[in-house]
């Protein structure tokens, strides 16, 4: 598992400084272009499509939360749908029961999920792999039951759930409709949180988190407080997914126990893997996949939608076994090589070209040793 961050660092060693600066600049332009497109989209499309795009952002954000924990820290979760659900319910309860304005419900949703995440993170410290998966899985399975529980009905509305009012367009923006406003609001939050995640993963703390993923014992030997970082990562991861859940309550305008079944968690996991572990843009690809592909499958054949969905998943994983981000890196590598052949003055460093293949060998050797 590699990350764009590692990639940049490694390339920085190989490539001359000028080229690195150029690459960074390219990256900024791509980012700016993507944001511009994202801003224009809700005015090109109408109603339902805008809602779907909002959902893509929300799923992307939720998958980012899962990614922080699984992709960057190496802790496995099949239960992030639970945090998504908790976030959604915090927003719904605060808005509908206590009349709190929608935008003030997001921080509490995040904080509650952070706390819940820490609580799950503590037992998770002792567990690894499938055993850890069971704890998170328990969360995902138990949440709908808790939400239906009659003792909590006064808050949660039991099986009926809670209908959530759609946020009003603020007075200073009279020209856009409620769907467009919600999209832009979600986009702003999403950008903010991706920016935060990008800073986090690029920081010292981020490197510590990744060091724990790569070799926990070695990381501890270097003086990294592994239990602390793992617990905190769990909390932050839950916070991200919880905020996404809160946004989804606003977008869907309804929360009910069965909207947060185990399948939500599984969808996040599929989105994460197909988008690419440890990649930030990959999360949005994952969001796109999870939202649109089931619809595409449905349109292929109503009766066999599940078959079509499964087959598409298989095709994607056969073509891109390390997710969209890994695929993009691979294609990028090919292109770079091509360019370097054209410009013999800049001789490719053999290392940079051979690296992907080497890495595979290396990992394989490692996994054999670990056994």
């Amino acid at each position, binding site marked *: 598992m590699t990350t764009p961050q590692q990639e940049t660092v490694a390339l920085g060693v190989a490539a001359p400084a000028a080229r690195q600066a150029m690459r960074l600049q390219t990256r900024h332009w791509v980012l700016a272009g993507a944001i511009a497109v994202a801003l224009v989209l809700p005015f090109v499309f109408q109603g339902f499509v805008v809602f779907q795009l909002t959902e893509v952002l929300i799923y992307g954000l939720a998958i980012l939360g899962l990614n922080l924990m699984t992709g960057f820290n190496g802790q496995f979760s099949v239960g992030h749908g639970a945090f998504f659900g908790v976030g959604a319910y915090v927003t719904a309860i605060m808005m509908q029961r206590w009349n709190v304005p929608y935008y003030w419900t997001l921080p509490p949703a995040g904080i509650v999920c952070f706390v819940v995440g820490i609580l799950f993170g503590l037992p998770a410290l002792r567990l690894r792999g499938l055993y850890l998966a069971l704890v998170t899985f328990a969360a995902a399975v138990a949440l709908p039951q808790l939400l239906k529980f009659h003792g909590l009905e006064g808050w949660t509305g039991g099986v009926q759930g809670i209908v959530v009012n759609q946020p009003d367009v603020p007075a200073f923006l009279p020209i856009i409709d409620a769907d467009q406003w919600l999209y832009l609001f979600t986009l702003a939050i999403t950008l903010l949180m991706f920016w935060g995640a990008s800073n986090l993963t690029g920081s010292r703390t981020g490197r510590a988190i990744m060091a724990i993923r790569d070799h926990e014992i070695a990381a501890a030997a270097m003086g990294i407080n592994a239990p602390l970082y793992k617990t905190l990562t769990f909390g932050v991861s839950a916070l991200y997914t919880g905020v996404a859940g809160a946004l989804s309550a606003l977008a869907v305008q309804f929360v009910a126990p069965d909207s947060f079944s185990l399948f939500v968690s599984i969808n996040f996991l599929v989105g994460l893997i197909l988008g690419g572990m440890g990649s930030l843009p990959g999360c949005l690809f994952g969001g796109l996949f999870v939202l649109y592909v089931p619809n595409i499958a449905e349109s292929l054949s109503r009766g066999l939608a599940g078959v079509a969905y499964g087959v598409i998943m298989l095709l994607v994983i056969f073509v891109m076994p390390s997710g969209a981000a890994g695929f993009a890196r691979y294609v990028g590598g090919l292109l770079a090589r091509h360019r370097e052949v054209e410009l013999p003055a800049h001789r490719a460093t053999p290392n940079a*070209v*051979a690296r992907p293949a*080497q890495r*595979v060998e290396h990992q394989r050797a490692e996994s054999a*040793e670990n056994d």
Partner: protein
Amino acid sequence: MMLEVEGLNAFYGEQQALFSVKFDLAEGGVRTLLGANGAGKTTVLRSLCGMVRTNGDIHFDGKAIAGWPTEKVVRLGVAHVPEGRGTFVRLTVEENLQLGAMTRRGRAAIAADIDRIYDHFPRLRERRRQQAGTLSGGEQQMLAVGRALMLRPRLLLLDEPSFGLAPLIVEELFHILRQINRDTGVAMLIVEQNAALALELAEHAYILETGRIVMDGPAAEIGADEGVRRAYLGY
């Protein structure tokens, strides 16, 4: 010749690790591959077993085995004590030994061989029911050799058998290897850092440098040549 290798190239990804390597080994012979770290010694052994991508010719008993899957090569009677020992850490010591004989038939003969291995390495008998991952490095090395012998191989590939062993145990291990070679006539190809020991056991040595064989000759001559010793063998 039982084993004939010619024009062997090997690759890790796109990196070439061996360059037209050529050597051979007769039935019952013992030869050694020497050289510095990273010279490609381990890769030669891995190439023979189809564990890396290669091109070139590898003939075993006249069969062209280059590119064969590992398990098919093993079934010809080629046992490999790999780098890092390849212990089945979750299985018991005895199960590890039984696995060595996986391609053989005949329960009684296998049981007798296990007993013989225990005679060679009494420590293993003491720990026969123990999870193999709990053995010390030296014990795991003995287990790896024992497991390879369980195949009743015709060719034994040994990758640094002395690695991680105390000097006394190394002496003993090489003594056992010599004895096994005499008794069973199994041919051996030994990769070693401990050149002095390997040269004592082998009759012929090859010296590798950056993936190429740069020198070969009778073990006694190589060991006697001070220049070679200084330049390549470090003693």
